[in-house]
Structure formats: C-alpha cells, structure tokens
C-alpha cells in the first residue's frame, strides 16, 4: 500500500495507540472528580498540557484542547467575533479557507458581520498589499490559513502578523492545520493570537486538536457547560485523545527538521517526474509551498476516475479536500487561482508524510504514467 493522502488524515503512530489504550484503561476517571482517581486523571491532563506547551514554546494556560481543526477554527473565529462584537463588525479572511473557516464566516455574515474575502493570485496566494488595503479601523478579526490544504501554497501570515503586532484591537487567527510540522510557525513572536492545530494530521488520534489562545485574548465559548478548559470549552476532557495527541506532537517535533528536508527531496522528485508526463499540469507552486503537497491535473482525465484507477494498485491519493470532496463541482481554490473548471475537475492531490519513502514515490510516478496512458486510450 502506498498512502499519499496524508493531508486528509494520517496513520496514527503505534506509540499513540498504546497511549490511547493505557489511558482509557487506567485513567478513565473524570479529571473533575474530587476523589484520588480523578486526581490521577487531572494530573495526567496537567502534564499533557505542560508538555504540549513546552513543545510549542507557549504557556500551558494558552492551550485549549479541542476535538480537531473544525472545532478549533469555529471556536477561534466565532468565539473571537462574538467576544469583540462591540468593538467593530469587520472581519478579514481569504477566498480559499477550509470549509470549517469559510462556512463559519458565512454564518457570521448572516449575524450582521461584514467579511472581506481576499482573492488569490495564480499561485493561490493572497497579497500583503491587498490585505493592507482591506484592513480598517474596525477590523476585529483576521483569519488566514497558513498552508492551503489542496494546493499547499504558503500564505504570508508572518508578514501579516508583523503588521498586526501593534494593532491590539485586531485578533489574528491562523489555521495551521496543514502547516503544522511542515511549515513551522513561531507562535509567541509572530503576532498571532489564535492558532488552530489538529491531532490527526500529524499521526495523533482523530477527534483531537488544540487551539492556541494568546494570554489576554478573549473567546466567547461555543458550548455552554461545566466550564472545562478555563471556561472556554466545556465538556469532559477526552483524556486518552489528548495524551495521544501530545505524544504524537512530541514524536513529530523530534523529527521535524529532518522530516521537512526529506519531504522537500520527495517533492522535488514529484515535480521532476511529473514534467515527464506530458498531460500533467502542476498547480502547486515550486516556491513558497509546503513540501508535503503536490496538486496536479492530468489533462483529459477526470480526477475521480484516476483516483479509482490508482487504488487498483493500492495507491491512495485524493481529489480535492476530503472534507468537500462529496460536494459536486470543481475545487474552489483552483477556480479562484484562475484554473478552468474542466482542468480543476481533473486535479488530484498527492500528500506525503515524514515516513513516505523515495521508493514509494518512484512506484507512484511510474504507475501514474502507465495509468494515464491506459486511460487516455480508453477515454479517447
């Protein structure tokens, strides 16, 4: 099996599975219970939070454990918009956010907020100049994804963060779900107030995530309840999931530098190999993109057909974002980049992990070339 759909989700580390089992079995008590079993669970929760904080160079109180990227984005965007609604009603985001951010903004529009959606250029990137033009006195929230989930383009969040550093009335949220451990961000110094991370994108368990909330940033909670996570996210803590995610966080960051270098080599190989397939049209820019994603259209072949043809050889890639792949129509970001709707419907996304091997990429490239040749004959 060659699994190249790591942007959709990753395979959990075996060590993470061990943790899930042990914690579920031995630390099942509710961390909020007063008895000593509850105390044990609470201690483990505290330790998890401390370890995550030290790995991310932030303070433990700045962490809210969530159920993943969708919740993180919703809590950050709606939570900040509601908390600061009396300060202004203007919000800025991009035209190419993940659905969990994009639809949250649409909801906010129905509640009287005004949203500016920044357009992207042919590489899928917003421009800092345009952002500055869109920025207003009453902008209370800016939310930008760091790495686009379909194409891999890196957005200028560091520039925007530096610009917003001395604008205390604007909260800056970064969706780092795809960028985490692929394109590192320094949380404490880059002007970011909120940052969403999802556990299952780096070999942690599904249903886990973490929202960084800079000290002093207010959030209006989405869930009413028992006031867990410092009144920001009610609900009994998912202790096995949290521990598993924190372990995955450590294991991933331990190999971050070599992992990224390895991905860069593989990505280069893919770029070079795709140049030899004459109907391949690569959408991922070679500069300023994350190293784990390559998005490419095989002209004349519908993406869905190609995905199923490749899976006969146990190679797994995806069409667009898994979260929107069931909606009909072409990928939003590709269309926003100016790709024709036909070509956009022919795009597949190849997404790798640290453990993807060079050999797997070789096999993938040769299988793709063969498959494309066969399909060309069939579809003619």
């Amino acid at each position: 099996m060659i699994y190249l759909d790591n942007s959709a989700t990753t395979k959990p580390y075996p060590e993470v599975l061990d943790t899930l089992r042990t914690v579920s079995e031995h630390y099942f008590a509710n961390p909020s219970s007063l008895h000593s079993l509850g105390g044990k669970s609470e201690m483990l929760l505290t330790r998890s939070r401390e370890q995550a904080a030290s790995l991310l160079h932030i303070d433990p109180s700045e962490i809210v454990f969530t159920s993943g990227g969708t919740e993180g984005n919703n809590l950050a965007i709606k939570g900040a918009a509601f908390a600061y609604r009396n300060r202004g009603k203007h919000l800025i985001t991009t035209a190419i956010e993940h659905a969990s951010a994009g639809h949250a903004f649409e909801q906010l529009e129905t509640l009287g907020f005004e949203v500016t959606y920044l357009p992207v250029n042919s590489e899928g990137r917003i421009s800092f100049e345009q952002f500055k033009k869109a920025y207003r006195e009453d902008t209370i929230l800016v939310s930008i994804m760091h790495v686009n989930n379909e194409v891999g383009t890196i957005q200028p969040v560091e520039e925007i963060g530096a610009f917003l550093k001395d604008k205390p009335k604007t909260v800056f949220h970064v969706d780092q779900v795809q960028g985490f451990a692929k394109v590192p961000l320094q949380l404490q110094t880059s002007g970011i107030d909120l940052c969403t991370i999802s556990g299952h994108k780096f070999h942690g368990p599904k249903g886990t995530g973490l929202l960084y909330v800079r000290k002093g940033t207010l959030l209006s909670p989405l869930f009413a309840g028992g006031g867990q996570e410092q009144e920001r996210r009610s609900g009994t803590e998912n202790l096995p999931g949290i521990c598993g995610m924190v372990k995955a966080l450590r294991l991933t960051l331990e190999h971050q530098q070599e992992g990224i270098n390895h991905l860069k080599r593989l990505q280069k190989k893919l770029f070079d190999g795709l140049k030899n397939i004459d109907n391949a049209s690569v959408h991922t820019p070679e500069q300023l993109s994350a190293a784990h994603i390559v998005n490419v259209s095989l002209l004349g072949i519908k993406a869905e057909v190609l995905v199923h043809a490749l899976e006969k050889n146990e190679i797994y890639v995806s069409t667009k974002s898994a979260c929107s792949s069931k909606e009909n129509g072409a990928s939003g970001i590709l269309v926003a980049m100016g790709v024709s709707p036909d070509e956009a419907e022919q795009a597949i996304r190849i997404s790798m992990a640290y453990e993807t091997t060079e050999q797997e990429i070789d096999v993938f490239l040769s299988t793709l070339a063969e498959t494309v040749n066969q399909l060309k004959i069939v579809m003619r």
Partner: protein
Amino acid sequence: MIYDYFVVRFGEITLKGKNKKQFVVKLEDDVREKLREFPQLEIKRHFDDLEIKLNGEDSASVLAILQRVFGIQNISPAFKVGTELDQIREGVLRVANEEKGAKTFKIAARRKDKRYPIHGSELNQDLGATVLRQCDWLKVDVHRPDLLIRVEVGYHEARIYGKEVKGAGGLPVGTSGKVMLLLSGGIDSPVASYLIARRGATIEAIHFQSPPYTSDRAKQKVIDLSKKLRGFTGKFILHLVPFTEAQVAIRDAVPEDYRITIMRRLMFRIAEKAAIQRGALALATGESLGQVASQTLESMNTINSVTNLPVLRPLITMDKIDIAQIAKDIDTYDISIRPYEDCCTIFLPKAPRTRPDRIHAERFERKLAVDELVNAAVHGIETLVIDADTKEDAISDLL
C-alpha cells in the same frame, strides 16, 4: 529574528565591592544551570555583563528563562557588525524595522575605542538622521523613547542593541543563607517565597497536611506551587508535616475561638525545629497585617512568642490586591485558587479571636501534650526534593 546574542547586565551586585566576584560567579552558575537544555549556547562572563551567544537556539525561550534568574537587572538582545559607518547604519535600521510598535526612538552611540574617528555625538546625529529618513513611522524622543537603540563601537566590531527587557532583579539565589517558609497553598505564601528568594535566600518550604480532611489534591497543589517556585530558585525542598493528630487534639481541648491561635503556635514550634535541623536561620510567612484574624498584631504577638528565630514577613505592608498581582506575574495565582480544603480551612471556628493574648494561649496549651505533638509531627516529616527531573515515569511513557 535579527539578534544573535543577549547581553545580560547585573543588578545591585555590581555595588558589592570586594565580594562582587563571588556574586557574579554564582549568577553565572545559575544562568548556566537554567539554560542547560540549550546546548548550543555560548556564555561568556565580562567585567559587568554576561554575553550569551544563541547559535540558533530559540531566543524567546532563552529570554523567558533569563527573566526568571534573580540578580539580573536587564537583558538586551544584540548583534555585531563591522565598524564601517555604512555597516553600523544598516544595523541600526535593522533594529528600527524589527521593533514594530515603537513610535519614538533615540540613538545612544558611544565609542569604546577612542581611536575611532567619529565622535559619539556625531554618530548619534548621523544614525538618528538615517533612521528618520528610512522609517517614516518613527520620531525622535530623547527623554522617553519607546525604542532606545544603543550602539557601542569597539576596535574590531560594533555592537548594536535592541530593546532592553527588564530582569527579575534581586540577588543570586543562595547568596543570603537559608529560610524555612510556611507554605499554605493560598495566594500569599508563594508570593512571600518568591520575594525572599529574590533577595538571594535559599528557600525550604514547610507545609502542614491533615489527611483525610485534606486530600491528595491539596498536596499536589503545594507540589505544583513548588514547581513554579523552582523555576526561580533552581532546586526546591518541600517538607510535608502530618498535622492531623495535632489538629484533632486542639479541637478537643481548646475553646473554639482560640483554636487558630494555638494551631499557629504549634506550627511555628514545628517549623522552628525543622529550621534548626536543616540549618535555616529564619522562618518566613505570607502574613499581611490585619488581613485575617491570625494576622492582627495581637495574634502575631501571641503566636510569634513561641520562637526565637527571626520571622520574615515580606508581605506585611502589602494589600491583597497587590499580592494577587505578583502571584499572577509569577504564575502561581491559578494554582493557588484551586478550591481544595487545606489544614487551615478545616475545623475553622465561626468567630475566631482577633485579639488573643499570651496568657490565655499558654493556659489552654497546658491541656495539650504540646511537646509530644510537636515531636511526633517533626518526626513524621516527609521531605520532597522538587527538582527539574522529578517526572513520574509511568506518566512520561504515556506522553
């Protein structure tokens, strides 16, 4: 990040005359110890500063740790450039562009090497003009600038400093002897511990627990507070005293309104014995005058009379709101407000005596086996070393 090293300046230890060296060496040791997890750092001691070269280590993490080392007055990020005027100008501009948020600035340039052909005042003018021309958001303010850019021109190189950050002040830990501090788990005593440690004392904490009336979580709370304090003091020693027997005896023998007074007198006797055993020369508490019944002058007089050791009370003149602010600054507040019962909240009388006196206290104590209770408690002390490496292995495996 444009800076590649930090310059750490000492506080009042530079006034220590002949003893200065000893203080500076201790401070250097503390800095090295606390920065042990960053193997790439190069630390050099100069006459009145430490130079810490980052070599790629994370500057924000290093800075956060330095700000917790007692004896450091301030810390400046810095980098070096050549001595050509153009190189210095370019360096100053880098700082001006890095420190976003500043609206006013001032250049403070000086020649360390007097052979350098441009005088300090000319340098100031030239560099100031350069910044004004290139950075339209900055204005000059020579009195209270948001950003002071310091430049020192030596023979081979010029040092350019970014925005100075305040250090924790005080004296290096361990240069002032040892103190036994009564640590309750409330807001005040960790702050007292911090303030005394900042004056260079080594702190050992003593905590009274009364199981089953107090829980493991109350104990964990004190351990967590100790871990926070360890961030400032390095190693931290915590003595846990079994106090149930004494409290039950007091409840049974002493009239309700005097129970707190007698309880505190026993605590002081126990703490004094522990202090003597451990070589501490003073006791310390988080008391603030008049805050609660046991902290009126009459109470303190009655309670203090059982010991001959000096009792340090760094919070004695402070208001609760100011104490709470320090607790927030040193990050103990959130732990202190965890709601578990501690030994001072159980058997709490409805109306404690606010003006107790020694004569009554001594009379009530005659009904108690004071010496036996004190000795048994001291004998039962459990001592924990809260060190950087106390990580329970069962848990480490899970994470």
